Structure formats: structure tokens, C-alpha cells
């Protein structure tokens, strides 16, 4: 084939342009540290890294959800611990109340009971970030008013913590924390010939103290409570009535105090199971967090393996390209600089 110098010239310029293109692309990769700088570099690879990134992002969001939930659950647990301790103190007062006491001691006990009652009300009305902790969905209404009646509802706020759709409740409603259902059934002897009968509908417990062991509804002294704060109030009232001059009143008061012993025991157990439940939630949140962390690590590794450029490899390629460029330029200089005209006389 007949070759003219211009053909060679064109080839050389194309070669130079092509080599410079390669140089540019390698530089790009070195700068960004990534093998994929545009979707066309590796379309399927980019699709996978995009999907992985979406999963990583979702994991980070679940992590945030878990942290927020953890805050709530931990705080609730702290509050419930205080409630538990208060109930223990109330149980001591019940024990003291069953034995004879001096009037001064009685007055002190009554004051203590009042203080514990108020403390329980405060604890039940705790706020976190300006929202009531124990109100269920009614987070802006004070859960326990001054009649110690529950104003909230049983709403459970669930928060998603995993891509599979697992949700963890982050609150406990007032009824679950401070009331109990259907636990007291056995009548109890609370004084000579006096029996306390317990009937429960929903969270409301009716205590009926009469002389008949087998007749729960026979006439007698009865009182009602729905939650532990009301129990504390009844205790305070009963203690204050012990020293009354009227022996009937006084004996009723003593009976009431004895009748409160079982409910307080039940409430103590209830509180323990609430704490266990909260502890279970914490450990569940922790294990979800761990799973997310592991998944995120795996995904990061996958993303890196698809995307990341090895600087050493690129530098080697760059050196090669530089050598090619130099060779082209030298050869161009030699070939193009001369023609037959240089040799004609």
C-alpha cells in the first residue's frame, strides 16, 4: 500500500490524542479515588453501589430511630425504678400501720404516706422533651390529675428499627405502668372476723371489707382504687384515721391498711415485670443495632470493592502512558521533520 508522510502524520496525531485521553481518564481516577466517575464507566457496577448506598442510608436511619427509642426506654426505666422504690417504702408503712403506734408516729406515717403519694403522682406525670411519658397517645395532657384519675389512653408508639419491618414500642401507657388487672381474687382476713373481698373490672378494684368470708357483696366498708397513686392516697387516709376516737372508724382504718397489703404486693410484682419488659426492649434495640452495624460494614466493603481505585495500580498505568506519550512524540519529531526536499540541492 502506498503510504504518504501525511498518513503517518495523521496516525501520530491520533495516537497522541488517544494517549492523552487515556492519561486524562487515569488522572481522573487518581483524583477521585474511584474507578467509577460516570454511569457509563460501569453501569451495572454503579447500579449495585447505588442500591447498597440506599441500604446503608436506611440502616443509618434505623440506627437513629434506635437511638431515639433507647433514650425514651432508658428514661422510662429510670422513672420506674423510682416508682418501685417508693412502693417499697409504702409497703413498709403498711407493715408499720398494722401494729400499734404512738400518735406522733402515726402523724409522721401519715405525712410520709402523703409525701409518697405526691411523689408517685409527679413520677407518673414525668415529661420528656415536653411530652408526657405515660399518657399513651395523649402526650400533651397531664396523665394523672389531682383526683389521681388517668386522663391518657392506651396508645402504643411503635418505631421501625429494621428493614424487615420490626418495630419496638417506645412508651408505656399509664394503665400498664401504674395499674393492674385481674390479679386479686382471694379474700383475705384483715382483722378478727373481718374479711376483705376484691373485685376487679378493668383497672378498677373494689375492696369490700365485711364480716362474711363467703359473701363478697355483703354490706361493709368498701373503697375503690384504679392505680397505685390512689392506693397511696387510701393508705394515707387510713393511717390518719387510726387515731380517731370512734373505735369503729379506727378499726375500719386498721382493716383497710391490712386490706392494702395484697394490692401493694401485686403492684410490686407488676412493677418488676414492667422493668423486665423495658429491659427486654433495650436488649432488643441493642441487638438490632448490632445487626445494622454488621450489615453496614459488609455493604461498605462491597461498595469499596466495586468502586475504589487502587492508587498504586493507577500510578503504574500513568507511568506507562507517560512512556508511550514520550515515545510517540520522539517518533513524530523524527519522521515529520524531514522530506526529500531537504536533500535536494
Amino acid at each position, binding site marked *: 500500500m502506498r503510504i504518504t508522510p*501525511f498518513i503517518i502524520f495523521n496516525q501520530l496525531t491520533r495516537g497522541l490524542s488517544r494517549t492523552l485521553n487515556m492519561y486524562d481518564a487515569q488522572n481522573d481516577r487518581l483524583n477521585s479515588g474511584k474507578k467509577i466517575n460516570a*454511569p457509563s464507566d460501569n453501569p451495572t457496577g454503579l*447500579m449495585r453501589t447505588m442500591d447498597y448506598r440506599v441500604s446503608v*442510608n436506611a440502616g443509618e*436511619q434505623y440506627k437513629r430511630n434506635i437511638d431515639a427509642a433507647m433514650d425514651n426506654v432508658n428514661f422510662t426505666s429510670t422513672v420506674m425504678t423510682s416508682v418501685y422504690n417508693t412502693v417499697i417504702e409504702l409497703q413498709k408503712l403498711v407493715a408499720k400501720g398494722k401494729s400499734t403506734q404512738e400518735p406522733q408516729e402515726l402523724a409522721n406515717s401519715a405525712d410520709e404516706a402523703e409525701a409518697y403519694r405526691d411523689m408517685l403522682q409527679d413520677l407518673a406525670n414525668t415529661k420528656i422533651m415536653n411530652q408526657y411519658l405515660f399518657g399513651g397517645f395523649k402526650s400533651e395532657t397531664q396523665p394523672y390529675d389531682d383526683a389521681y384519675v388517668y386522663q391518657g389512653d392506651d396508645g402504643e408508639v411503635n418505631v421501625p428499627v429494621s428493614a424487615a419491618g420490626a418495630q419496638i414500642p417506645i412508651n408505656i401507657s399509664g394503665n400498664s405502668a401504674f395499674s393492674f388487672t385481674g390479679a386479686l381474687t382471694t379474700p383475705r382476713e384483715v382483722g378478727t372476723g373481718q374479711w376483705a373481698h376484691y373485685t376487679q373490672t378493668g383497672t378498677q378494684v373494689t375492696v369490700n371489707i365485711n364480716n362474711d368470708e363467703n359473701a363478697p357483696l355483703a354490706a361493709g366498708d368498701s373503697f375503690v382504687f384504679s392505680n397505685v397513686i390512689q392506693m397511696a392516697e387510701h393508705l394515707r387516709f387510713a393511717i390518719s384515721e387510726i387515731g380517731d376516737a370512734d373505735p369503729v372508724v379506727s378499726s375500719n382504718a386498721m382493716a383497710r391498711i391490712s386490706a392494702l397489703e395484697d394490692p401493694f404486693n401485686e403492684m410490686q410484682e407488676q412493677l418488676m415485670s414492667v422493668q423486665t419488659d423495658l429491659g427486654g426492649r433495650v436488649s432488643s434495640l441493642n441487638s438490632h443495632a448490632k445487626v445494622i452495624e454488621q450489615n453496614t460494614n459488609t455493604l461498605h466493603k462491597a461498595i469499596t470493592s466495586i468502586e475504589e481505585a487502587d492508587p498504586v495500580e493507577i500510578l503504574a498505568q500513568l507511568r506507562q502512558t507517560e512512556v508511550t506519550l514520550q515515545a510517540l512524540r520522539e517518533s513524530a519529531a523524527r519522521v515529520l521533520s524531514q522530506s526529500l526536499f531537504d536533500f535536494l540541492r
Partner: protein
Amino acid sequence: MSLLGLFDIGRSALYASQTALNVTSNNIANANTPGYTRQEVTLSISNPISSAGGSVGAGVTLSGIKRNYDTFLQAQLQNQQQSLGRSAAMDQALGLIESVLNEAQGAGLSTALTDYFNAWQDLASTPTSQPQRMVLLQKATALAGSAQNIEAMVLDTIRSANNGISDAASQINMLASDIASLNGQIVQQETGTTQAANELRDQRDQKLNELSALVGNSYYEDESGSVTVTVGMRNLVSGTRTNALSTLTNAEGNKDLYLDGVNIADRVTQGRIGGFIAARDDIQTNVLTPFRRLIASITQQVNIQHQAGVGLDGSTGNDFFNPLQQLGTTTSSAGATISATVTSAAALTLEEYRITFNAAGDHYYVTNKQSGAAVADAAYASGNPIALLPGMSVTITGAVTSSDSFTVSPLTNAVSGFGVALTDTDALAASADPRVADPLAAVTANLPGDNANAVLVAQLASRTQTALGTTFSNYYSGIVSTTGAMKQISANTLAFDDNLLTAMRIQRDSVSGVSLDEEAANLMRYQRSYEAGARMIRITDELMQTILSL
């Protein structure tokens, strides 16, 4: 053979060498001219004279100046120019789209999309928080802004492609008239002689090359030397006449190509115009429409879920995003009009439909505009609603013909109308509607602490959507990946076409290109023969002197 005959022989030698030197100098001067074909003198023996001693040569004649030209190579080169023109245009357009969606560099929708649904998750953790609600509205606005930016840039690219088509069309018209006038000149110069009009032919070849880069064409030369060029099976240049190429915007907003009154847009596949048409169609099918469908799906699904929830102010049934209300229609008909409204945004299947008719104009056919699949067909009566298209009501009024067509689409305005409809943070429905579980409950029963609806909206991000076949994020990364694949293919095709064209150019240059070394050698050769011829004349002159001084 007379002595004077020697003068003639010498003279013919001088003349031949002189012409040859002319031609060689012309070659050297035009060595860098693009499209120049190397010329050579063809010398032949002059008719010999019979004489008593036998035939005696009478010198040299110039039988022609040959143009070193290979028709076959030239035709191949033209074809390859057309391919290269197409590849270059496609690569250019797709490159623009790729940079709009370059997720590898952080451009695109992905971040805004995940941020938006993450804001719903954060709201689920603290449903009553006003700052969190405001953040959610901000993220939603950011998502809308991002989407609209992307659509605007895609539409821009399509517009550039359309403009590229008109620009190329006007250039083609100029080239066509140049070719036509060259035709005239060549025919004039070549009639009656056997000499080819070398320079004019070179010029015309150059114009044909430029034309091929712009549009796919085929040409042939007739006996008179005039070239007929056809584009899209219609004559562009015929002799000295041309037909003008024009562009008209069609019902879809795209430029169609008209030659001699006929729409040739779907016949042109090569050249720059062919590339722009193909790129434009690819972008519309694989990028614009799916992107619109994605946004429409997000709008539709978020609205459906949000309407089911209750806001802090007790309101329910509110749209979060501006609802899909506007249907885009196009009309390609002289006598009929179309009106279409959305009856139920929740029922829309987010597909685009085309309605065509039979020859008698009494039966209509509804097909899916993208896939061509048949959707419905029934008897057509003007003013009656078209067969149930989910979520919309379509009516066509007027007389129709078989060439009429209409399109209806819920996607056309999906992105341009995309925006946050809520302004009041209290209307953000994080709470579930309690009346679903208990019809007698008050609608505000679960306020303010319920987050169940916020959780459901947040979980939309991981749900497979029927209209898309996958999740929002996955569908979007499919669009990006398809764009990348298209660009990768076009880049490879461009490189291939470029290499092939270069190889052909080398072949052509091998035949027609000027080599300075060769020309230098020729210069020497013809100079020597000129000197020899001149010497011959002097010798003859001396001989004459000898005779005359007898």
C-alpha cells in the same frame, strides 16, 4: 522526416515536461487541502509518421491529466461519514444526560429521595415535634426542586437535539445548493470533451462529505457527470435543482424533517440528524418518561397514605404533594378534539396511551404508547367517553380519520406540577385514623402522640410499587444505570466508527493523497526532461544553422 520535425518533437517534450511540472507544483501546493485528489499527467506517444525507413515517432502528447480517484473507496467513506455523524451526535446528547444523572459525582435525585423518607422516619420517632415537621416539609420541597431541576435539564437536552436538527437542516440546504451549482459547472466543463473537471469534482466530493456527516443520504452520478442526492428516499439534489429541507414541530413537541412535502423523519437514521433523532427518542423513552413515572408514583402513593392519616389539627384526607390532576394530551387531527380529566388519582396506572382509529372513523383503538400493547378498542361515537382508562375520563369529539391520533398521559405534568401542597405543619398526618378500627371513635382519638401513619409513609420507601415494579430508589437507579449503559454503548460505537473512518481515510490517502517525497522526485524528473528537451531544440537549431550556412 524533416529537420523541422525535430523542432516539433523537442517542442512536444518541452510542453509535456512543462505541464507535468505544473501538475506536480499543483499537487505540492495542495498537499494539505482537504479532499484534494492527487493528479498525474498521462503522457502517450504521438502518432508516428510513416516514412521510407519505417514508422518514426513524433514525440509525446499529453493525453490527459489523471485524477487518482477510487469511486468505491469514496462511496465507502461517505457511508462511514454518515455513521460517524450519527454516533457523534448520539454520544454528545447522551453525554449531556449522563452528567445530569451522574450519581457517581453526587448529582441526581438519590440523596434528596432518601432524605425525604428519612424525615418521615424521624417524624415517627417524635410525632408531635414542630421542628421535625418543618424539617419534613423542607425536605419535601428540596425533593421537588431536585426533581424539577433534573427534568428541566433533560428537556433542555432534548431541545438542543431538536435545535441541532434544524441547524443541520439549514446547513444541508446550503450544501445542497452548492452541490447543485457544482453539478452545473461540471456538466458544462465536461460536455464534449474527455477531460474530467478535476478541481470541481474535488470540491463536489468535499461538499458531499460534509453532507454525509449531517444526514444519511445516497447518491449516484449519471452519464452527464451530474450527481443526484436522495435523502429519505426523496430527491435533495437533482441536476441543478434542489428541494429544500424543512423542519416542523410536531404534536409531541419534536422537530420532524420534511423534504418535498413529505415527512422523512423516521427514514433518516444516519448522519448528525439521524443521531439527534435517535438520541432524542432514546432519552424520551428511557429517561424522561420513566423519571416522570417515578415522580408520579411518589406523588400518588404518598398522597394516598397521607390522606388516610389524621393531622394534629384533626384534619384528614389531605394531600401531601400537589395531586396528579393534569393530564397531558396531544392532538394530531384536523377535525376532532380531545378532553381528558382525572377521576381518581389513586387509580391511575401511570401509563401513557395512544388512541387511533380505523379507516371508516367509527372504531377506535387504544394502545400503550411505550410498549404498543393493545389496551382497549370499541366503536367510536363522537362525544362518548373512551373505554375505561383507569383513573381518567377521556372524551373525543368530532369527525376522525384513519391518520388521526391522540395521546393521553398522566405523566406529562407530573414533575412540573410536583410540589408540597401542605403549608400547615399541623396538617401533617402522622397519626392513624382511629375510625378504621372503631367506626364510632372520634377522628381525633389518637392525637397527638400516635405515629402509625408516619411509620406507614416512611415504609413506602421500601415497598415494591405496582406501577414501577420495584421500590422508588431501585427504579431510579435503574434509570441511571440505563443512561450509563446507553452512553457506554454510544462511546464505544463512536470510537469504533472513528477508527473505521480513519482506516478508510488511510486507504483513500494511499490512493489519492499527495506524498511530498514523490512530488520532489517528480520535480527532479520533469526538470531533467525539460532540460533535455531544451537541449534537443538547441541541437536542432545548430543543425539548421549548419544547413543554412551551406
